[in-house]
């Protein structure tokens, strides 16, 4: 009995180590490759062999990639602020006020966040062209609303539903209007939820690819994912793996740091968006 329990304990830790290795290895390998140049890059190895920052200087000296990072930061930030602004009041109404058709409305909002982006692509293309936003960051800010807004509304609604009803009742007794309740009573309590939701929406906007690929043409207008996807060498056969790995590391490190700092909040936000207890 004791023998088998030791065996299962060992197996358990082998599993744990395996999970961590598989999760971390691709990023570790990208980091390793990003510091290798010349023939060194093309020899597979598991431990650092060289420390050459040439790939980083090559990526960052090309003006376009720096611009792409700025574009991504701008687009993702404005998208998140706009979505949170619209979502706070909407989710108050959805979480706190009983009205007919509320369940249906919630399902519709969820449905919007589910439907395939490709299904709106030609219509959105027309709209963006009509508004004169083609090849500007505003085309992306507008189109990203399609997934950030339903997501933020949905998550904030679940958060707001859990706030104690007594606080609101006390405010109503004191004669507070719904707007006062939101801005003075709920908003201070919602800060943690806003940070979580905003962060998740930011990551979603930062990672978006299809709209960014479609609605921008100039190299200086691209966002980071498009820039990395289209990073190419002198010829089609020659893929610049070193610079690609360097670019990948540059855009991933801030995300990983953010995610590790806000670990608990992110898990809470993900589960509120996905499963509800």
């Amino acid at each position, binding site marked *: 009995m004791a023998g088998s329990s030791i065996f299962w304990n060992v197996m358990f*830790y082998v599993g744990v180590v395996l999970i961590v290795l598989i999760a*971390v290895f691709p990023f570790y*390998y990208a980091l390793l490759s990003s510091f290798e140049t010349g023939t060194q890059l093309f020899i*597979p190895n598991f431990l650092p062999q060289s420390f050459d920052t040439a790939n980083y200087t090559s990526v960052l000296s090309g003006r376009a990639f720096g611009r792409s990072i700025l574009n991504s930061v701008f687009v993702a930030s404005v998208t998140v602020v706009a979505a949170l602004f*619209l979502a706070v009041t909407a989710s108050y109404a959805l979480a706190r006020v009983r009205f007919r058709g509320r369940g249906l409305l919630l399902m519709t909002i969820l449905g919007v966040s589910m439907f395939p982006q490709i299904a709106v692509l*030609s219509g959105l293309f*027309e709209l963006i062209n009509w508004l004169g936003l083609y090849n500007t960051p505003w085309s992306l800010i507008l189109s990203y609303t399609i997934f950030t807004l339903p997501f933020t509304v949905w998550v904030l609604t679940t958060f707001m539903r859990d706030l104690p009803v007594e606080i609101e009742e006390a405010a109503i007794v004191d004669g507070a209007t719904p707007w006062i309740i939101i801005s003075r009573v709920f908003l201070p309590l919602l800060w943690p939820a806003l940070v979580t939701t905003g962060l998740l929406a930011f990551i979603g906007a930062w990672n978006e690819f299809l709209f960014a690929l479609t609605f921008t043409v100039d190299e200086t207008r691209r966002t980071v*994912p498009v820039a990395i996807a289209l990073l190419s060498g002198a010829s089609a056969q020659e893929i610049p793996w070193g610079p690609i790995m360097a670019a990948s590391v540059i855009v991933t490190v801030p995300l990983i740091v953010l995610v590790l700092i806000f670990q608990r909040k992110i898990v809470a936000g993900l589960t509120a968006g996905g499963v509800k207890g």
Partner: protein
Amino acid sequence: MTTTITASAERAAHRETGLQQQRARAAFWFLAPMLLMLFFVAAWPLFRSIMYSFTDATSDTIFNGQSEWVGFENYLTWRVRDNGEIRWRGVLADADWWNAVWNTVRFSFISVALETVLGLLVALVLNSEFRGRGLVRAAILIPWAIPTIVSARMWGWMLNDQFGIINSMLLSVGLIDAPIAWTARPDTAMIAVLIVDVWKTTPFMALLMLAGLQMIPRDMYESARIDGIHPLKVFFRVTLPLLRPALMVAVIFRLLDALRIFDLIYVLTPRSEGTVTMSVLSYLNLQQFGDYGEGSAQSTLLFAIIAIFVALYIWLGRVDLSGERS
């Protein structure tokens, strides 16, 4: 005495309904900006895309209104040739389309099945007490945090036919005799896509299921342990049934996400017959070939498939997605 009580109760009730009305009015104005926005960025473009699918619009005519209404021609049409032979045309008669449908369905079901099983395993590991649990949870968040495009590139490098570390590992262990061009060969391209998707998305599944697992009361396991019930039996009789609601929701979210997959395939295995999905094919028609009629017909079909699927799932599974009943 009684009259005053009724009167005050009536007044209170009055005030109550007045308050309710005020709140309902406020709710309307709070919802209006969000709904208006969603109408402009979602409902209207969707409607226009569906309309395009009934026209012969191309990249030259899409913006100047010169495209013609062609009815269902983009979907299915036939022409009788001189020799009496019937020629079918349109998306529904297109072998490339059915190949894309097959790829999408195959990808979605295999990836979600793998992610569910592996996610459950990881969640069970994370749900038990051990040293370094926080570290493991942090580690599995890394694949989730890496942008899809970046993970496609990282894995594209690792799966490289000549210089990739995966081939080098497999060769040194003796599992393969010659390097495999994972992303280029039609028979292995789908495997490559599945590997990357499972790697990237299993953490998400694991976290959702972990949340479900943590809601199962600990004393349930405790009493099962004291009664000497085999852990496997506990898992199938207690854990799994209690986890079912969380599992159902996680699976539907993932399936819907998988059915619309675009970026991973577009970057990892471009132009591969073996992995082209409905989204990718539709995108190629719209952007590469400028065929807005056919591309929109394909995107509309994908939308219809997903809509039907969601309706079926909610109806069959009685899933409480909106959380209204809880």
